[in-house]
Each structure stands twice: as C-alpha cells, then as structure tokens.
C-alpha cells in the first residue's frame, strides 16, 4: 500500500509538532523518519496510524483519503516504542488479539487463529514461547512479539515507533538485520521512526530527516549522507567540523579556509558556514599553499579508525578521522604541528 501525507499540521497546546508536512511512501518501501526528539517524527507516525488527529492536512492510503478513518479501520500495523504488550495475556493471546476482536462474521475459527498465530510466532522465531507472559520475556523477544501481533491482522502497512530504542547495542544489531531480512521476505510498506542515524542509514531504502516539525530532507541514504540538503542534516547525520565566515565574488572565506565558491558570484558579502566531515580531512607535514596549520591535542585509537582532535591557530577544535594504516604511515604525535587539507567542504549561505 502507498501512503501519502499532505500538508499535515498538528499542535499540542502551544507546541507545534508538525508544520505543513508532506511526503509519500511508495508501496513496498522501507522508510525511516529520522530526527532528534521533539522533531515531530513520532507524531507524524501516530497521525498516519490514526492515533492522533491532525489539525489540518490529510493522510491518503493508495490514493484514498483516510484522514477521518478510525485506527480500527485503517488496517495498519503499529509497533509501539515500549511495545505496549497486553500484560495480562500470554504471548499467544497477544498475537491472537487482533483476530479475536473482529466482528463475528469475519472472525476466523479457533483452529485458523491457532494456525495463523503459530505461523507468525515461527516467523519471529518465538514458536516455543507462546505460553509465556510478556513480563517473562527479554526486550528483544518482546519486540518480536509486538511485531508478530502487528502482522497478525495482515496490515497493509507497518509503522514502527523507535523499534530498537529500548534494546541494548548487540540485540539492536541482530534485530536490525533480522528486520531487513523480514522486509525482504514480505515486502510490506514500512515506516519506522528513529533518532539513530546509523540505524536509519543501514536499514531504510529512504530516509526522511525531520527537525522542528518540518522535513529537512527526503532522499536515499546515500543522498542524505553525501548531499545533505541543509546544515541541520549535515550536523545530524555524522560528525562535522564547522567554519564560519562569508562568501563574496566567487570566493568563500571561512576562518582559516579560503575556497572557490562559484555559486555566489555577486560582490555582495553574505555570511556562510563551511562543513567538513572528520574523515574528509587529510593530514600532511608539507605545506603547499592555502595553509591550515593545527596542533595535535589528542589521539584515540578506536578499532579500524583513529580519532584525532587538533586545535587550529585560533584555538578552534578540529576533529579528524584517519584509517589506521594511514595514521601509522604518518604517525603524528601529540603536540606536533601538522598541515590539514580538507578534501571536501560544503558551504551553506545563511538566510
């Protein structure tokens, strides 16, 4: 099922959670809503599910307006952040719930329900835990029960709110892989909310970056990483070094950096900032012109990469990440002055 959201606005008292948000999810996609807390991503997800009523705008499923439809009639699966499993029911009964509450005419027989639930429990690899209660399960298991429960009603789309938020790092990794495989198997249109950029980039076909109730960027993971549309996306998706300055007559003068900037040929000076990622900076010992000297202040080896902190001539902090081999070839020591060469700087003019 495709989902289209048109000009959604939602306020809670004086707080605006969504400002005129529009975007589309095509059938079979796995989309991540990425953003910091308070960016409106969960509200957007809940509005799609019908758990919140928008102040303005509409939600369309396969082109049909579903804005006024109750959550009961939307046939979307929703996985809650804290799972919201029914504490007083067994795993089996939790999964069966959506089938048992159907009107009598549409309700499958007990045997059918049993078959269906067993099938789903097998799908989420919990076939032996049907008799347990939610309190007796681990976090990862609860997560999978929540998923099986959502899938039991054969939803036309799956919505997941911070699906891995409450799990520890290792279980997270596993479940992420597992969810990607599952999506490969059943091709269900899915939207999930996360504040973890790594999770969004690793799992989704498409990432929608949200901030302050609006969409900052909507693109493939690669687009978001390589061509961030706004400084916010640049900042939010990975570490950055930032240089403030101005652009004028085809040049950008950003603190210690001077670059060509053909996008602004006008003689009028505009203030701007340049961003470069830690791994996009080269370190050398030889100077060859447009100089940026810095002093090494801290070196940390973290597995395959080495994280360095340097301070430039004015005392500003610059982060650099080198591959281990690269670092070993050069081996700069703490306190040494080295020459920095940003391979790539993205410049954003201020409004």
């Amino acid at each position, binding site marked *: 099922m495709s989902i289209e959201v048109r000009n959604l606005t939602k306020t809670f008292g004086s707080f605006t959670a969504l400002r005129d948000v529009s975007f589309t999810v095509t059938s079979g996609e796995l989309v991540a809503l990425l953003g910091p807390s308070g960016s409106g991503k969960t509200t957007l997800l809940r509005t799609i599910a019908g758990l919140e009523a928008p102040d303005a705008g509409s939600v369309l499923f396969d082109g049909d307006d579903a804005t006024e439809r109750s959550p009961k009639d*939307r*046939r979307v699966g929703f996985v*809650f952040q804290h799972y919201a499993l029914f504490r007083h*029911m067994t795993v089996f009964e939790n999964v069966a719930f959506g089938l048992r*509450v159907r009107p009598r005419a549409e309700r499958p027989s007990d045997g059918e329900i049993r078959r269906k639930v067993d099938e789903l429990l097998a799908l989420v690899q919990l076939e032996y835990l049907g008799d347990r209660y939610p309190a007796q399960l681990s976090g990862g298991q609860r997560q999978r029960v929540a998923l099986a429960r959502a899938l039991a009603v054969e939803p036309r789309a799956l919505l997941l709110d911070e699906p891995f938020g409450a799990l520890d790092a290792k279980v997270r990794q596993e479940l992420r892989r597992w969810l990607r495989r599952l999506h490969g198997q059943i091709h269900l249109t899915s939207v999930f909310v996360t504040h973890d950029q790594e999770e969004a980039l690793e799992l989704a076909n498409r990432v929608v970056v949200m901030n302050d109730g609006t969409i900052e960027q909507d693109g493939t993971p690669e687009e978001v990483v390589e061509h961030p549309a706004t400084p916010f996306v640049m900042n939010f998706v990975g570490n950055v070094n930032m240089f403030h300055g101005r652009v004028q007559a085809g040049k950008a003068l950003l603190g210690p950096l001077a670059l060509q900037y053909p996008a602004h040929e006008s003689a009028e000076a505009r203030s701007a900032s340049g961003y470069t990622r830690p791994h996009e900076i080269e370190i050398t010992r030889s100077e060859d012109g447009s100089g940026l000297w810095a002093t090494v202040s801290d070196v940390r080896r973290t597995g395959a990469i080495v994280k360095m902190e340097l301070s430039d001539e004015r005392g500003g902090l610059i982060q650099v990440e080198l591959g281990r081999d690269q670092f070993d070839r050069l081996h700069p020591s703490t306190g040494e002055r080295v020459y920095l060469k940003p391979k790539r700087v993205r410049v954003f003019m201020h409004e």
Partner: protein
Amino acid sequence: MTTTAAPGVSATRGHVIIPSKVRRLTEPSIVRFVLTGMALAFLMLFLAVPLTAVFVEALSRGLAAYVAAMAEPFTIAALRLTLITTAIAVPANLVFGLCAAWVIGKFQFRGRHVLTTLIDLPFAVSPVIAGLVFVLLFGRQGFFGPWLAEHGVRIIFAVPGIVLATVFVSLPFIAREVIPVMEASGAQEEEAARVLGAGGLQTFFRVTLPNIKWGVLYGVILCSARAIGEFGAVSVVSGHIRGLTNTLPLHVEILYNEYQFQAAFAVASILTCLALVTLVAKTIAERRLHT
C-alpha cells in the same frame, strides 16, 4: 548515642525485634523495644480490646440467647434492608467510579483536578450533613416535599432516602482507588488494541479491565464496607421504623438504647464479622494490586 550497628549483628541477639536484613542504620535495641511496645499497646487498647469485647458481650448470655437475637424477625428485616441498600449503592458507585476513572485517568482536560477534588467531597462532609441535605430536598418541608406528598411518593423515612444517603457517603471509594491504577496503566495498551481493530467496549473489557481489576475489587470492598456500616447519614433519613426502614447499624442502636445490650452486641457481631471479612479481602486485593 550509638549509630551504626554492624550488618546483621543486632539481628541475632534474640530480641523480639529484628531489624530488616538490608537496613544497617537503626535505633538502639532498647529504643526499638520501647517503640514497638508503645505501638502494640496502642493498637491493643484501640483495636484488639474492643474487638474482643464485641464477641464477649454478644455471648454473655450463652449461645442460645445469641442465636435468638440473630433470628429475631426485626434483625432479619434489618439485615435484608442493609443488603438491598448495599446491592444498589455499590453497583451504582461502581459504574460511576469506572466512568470517572476512565475520564480522569486516560484523558487530559481542563478542570480535571477540580473534578478529582469534587469526587472526594463526600469524605469531607459529616454523615449527618449527608443525611440532612436529602431531608432538605425531599423532606416534608423540603424543596420537593409538597410535590412528593401530593403524588404519594415517600423518599425520606423510606427506603429510597436510605439508598440515596448510602450512595452519597460511599460514592468516592471506587473512583479514588481506580483513578491511580488507571493513570498508571497509561494509554498505550488501549491504543495498541485500537490499531489491532478492537472496538471501544472490546478495548475496555479485554484490555483495560484486566489491568485494573484488583484496583476495582479493592474499591468495591471499601465501598461495600462503608455502605453496610453507614450510620449517621442513614439515621437522619431513616425514621427508624422497625422492620421497614431499619438497617443493621440502626437496629444495633435501637437495641442498645432499649438496654437489650446482649442482643445489640449479637447484631453488632454480625457487622464485626463482615468488617473482619472486609479486612482479609482488602489485604488480599492489596497484595495483588502491588505485585
């Protein structure tokens, strides 16, 4: 003054009082002993002695007299009226309590705190005043008195008045027990049920009610105890007509005032047994509520 005892040391000295395993800081054992003694003496004086006295007095003329007092027709009639009143008041307040708890526990709206306070209002009102307000409404000189008299409807000095007064004094019990439980269970499970296609009533009976059932039971127990035992409010509206408008507590009063002490205590012992059952049921419900 000494302060810290080494972990577990004072626990093995063979005193009656043993500090809990985890707590290392406590008072010197003599202080603990004296405080425990004072506490128990206070409770003995105000709880155990009166409780014993009820049964001793009730049986003071032997078992035969005890049974005779119980089997007396007016006692039976009073018991029946008490049960009828309770059977009306408790379900009514149960429906009210569930509605109030649903709206206060699951929704945010302006005036929510005011509503919570208003529900507690009957607790702050003297039972005598609770009876009086209904006399002012429905009594012979009351607002509706002339109209009721014209149409031959009796509320005061009749069963409806007793029910109204009982509902009034026992009104907050269920609501105030269920509200916190309802609040604590949040709205997520209900939302999940809705997304899974459950209707409003299905959501309530299959998801909400199982989560709050011990809180509800606890409230029902407290409400019943109050409804059975109410004296002041009922006394004002009852008119004390034997066999007709006498509840058990009022019957106790009449017997006592007629110097039939043994019979009064025999009837009182029924109420006391009900109170003890209440305490046991309450303790069980409470344990389940907190686990």
